């Protein structure tokens, strides 16, 4: 059973202090300021709004949304008290991209990005996390166990293994209209790594639907089983960055 959050939802519960530490912090770079993430709006024409709803219906019927072609392992992706949404959702973006490339499923662990926060339980910037992952890669559950953010808790092979899973090429959204760009990206079969300041949260967006005539966007989220969310109204519009991963390195091998 999914949750649904719109402009009328009392968000004091989802933002309750201590429930989930603030994980997403405001981006540090300007749009287009990351070398591996050119500005989406400069490369891709926006799909006209008149086509959005028919395309959503068609894509849903044919199972074309990335969220219909890839499912998160909600237990392994559960951040469970850690402020690691910025890392968990980035790992989801890479796993989904691998599925879109036809690569076999591998559980990637956002905990493996803990160096960004000096191996402590802290929030972080989406753009900086993206840069770190694009340089170092993300390790798998074979070397980094769930919820372990200390390097001493990882297998030493993680540093070598993570290089098999480097998110190579991105787009940076928000050059003109971040909502229209996010919808265009989803309607072309991609997913979006986004942040919401009202939620202090980073998520991976993977699907659209039309509900009561309004477009809503889905995230598998990283708050555990049964906590995937449909976002509606202004709550759906990314406000701390929206990034699309286009390609990931080929894994020549993985550690069994």
């Amino acid at each position: 059973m999914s949750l649904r959050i719109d402009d009328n939802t009392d968000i004091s519960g989802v933002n309750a202090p201590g429930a989930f530490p603030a994980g997403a912090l405001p981006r540090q770079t300007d749009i287009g300021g990351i070398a591996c993430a050119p500005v989406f709006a400069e490369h891709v024409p926006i799909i006209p709004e008149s086509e959005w709803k028919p395309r959503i219906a068609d894509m849903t019927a044919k199972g074309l949304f990335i969220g219909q072609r890839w499912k998160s392992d909600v237990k392994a992706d559960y951040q469970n008290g850690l402020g690691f949404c910025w890392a968990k959702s980035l790992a989801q973006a890479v796993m989904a991209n691998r599925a879109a490339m036809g690569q076999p499923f591998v559980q990637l662990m956002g905990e493996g990005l803990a160096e960004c926060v000096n191996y402590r339980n802290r929030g972080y910037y989406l753009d900086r996390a993206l840069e770190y992952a694009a340089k170092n890669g993300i390790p798998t559950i074979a070397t980094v166990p769930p919820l372990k953010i200390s390097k001493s808790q990882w297998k030493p092979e993680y540093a070598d293994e993570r290089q098999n899973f480097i998110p190579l090429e991105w787009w940076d959204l928000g050059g003109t209209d971040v909502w229209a760009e996010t919808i265009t990206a989803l309607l072309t079969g991609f997913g979006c790594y986004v942040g919401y300041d009202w939620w202090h949260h980073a998520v991976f967006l993977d699907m659209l639907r039309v509900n009561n005539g309004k477009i809503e966007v889905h995230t598998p989220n990283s708050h555990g089983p049964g906590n995937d969310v449909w976002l509606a109204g202004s709550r759906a519009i990314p406000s701390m960055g929206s990034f699309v991963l286009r390609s990931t390195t080929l894994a020549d091998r993985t550690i069994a």
Partner: protein
Amino acid sequence: MATIGKYLLWIAAVGMIVVGGLGVGGVPVSEYAGQATDWVWAWVQPSVSKPTVAVIVYESNNPAPLPQNMVELYALAPSLGVSLWDKDIEGKGKKPSAQAKPFIDAAGKDGLPKLVVKWSNGKLTVKSCNGWTVDDLKKAIGKP
């Protein structure tokens, strides 16, 4: 006359087996797990060769608007066993992937997207797949 005919048939049959066994224009025996009669048939009819690796090489930063049939093609290709690789894809440590290089080289950099297929007979084929439907892709890789 009938005896000469039998000899000619025998010579033809032996010749076919020898040539097929050498893999000249056909399926090398070492790569074909079927019965001998199967690989002889595969040699005389190359169309039964099957894809071992199939990849659509494309440019993910393509500025052209994606028509719906191409969105569908890219989205459903993996479900048909066809990988989808950006032309700039790299391997471990961001080096050119040994796994991908032959396919990327075969596709070239222009006129993408292209379908690159390595067949069980060892041949590599390249076809432009711009504007294709999923049915076109199925036909190209011999899926019903």
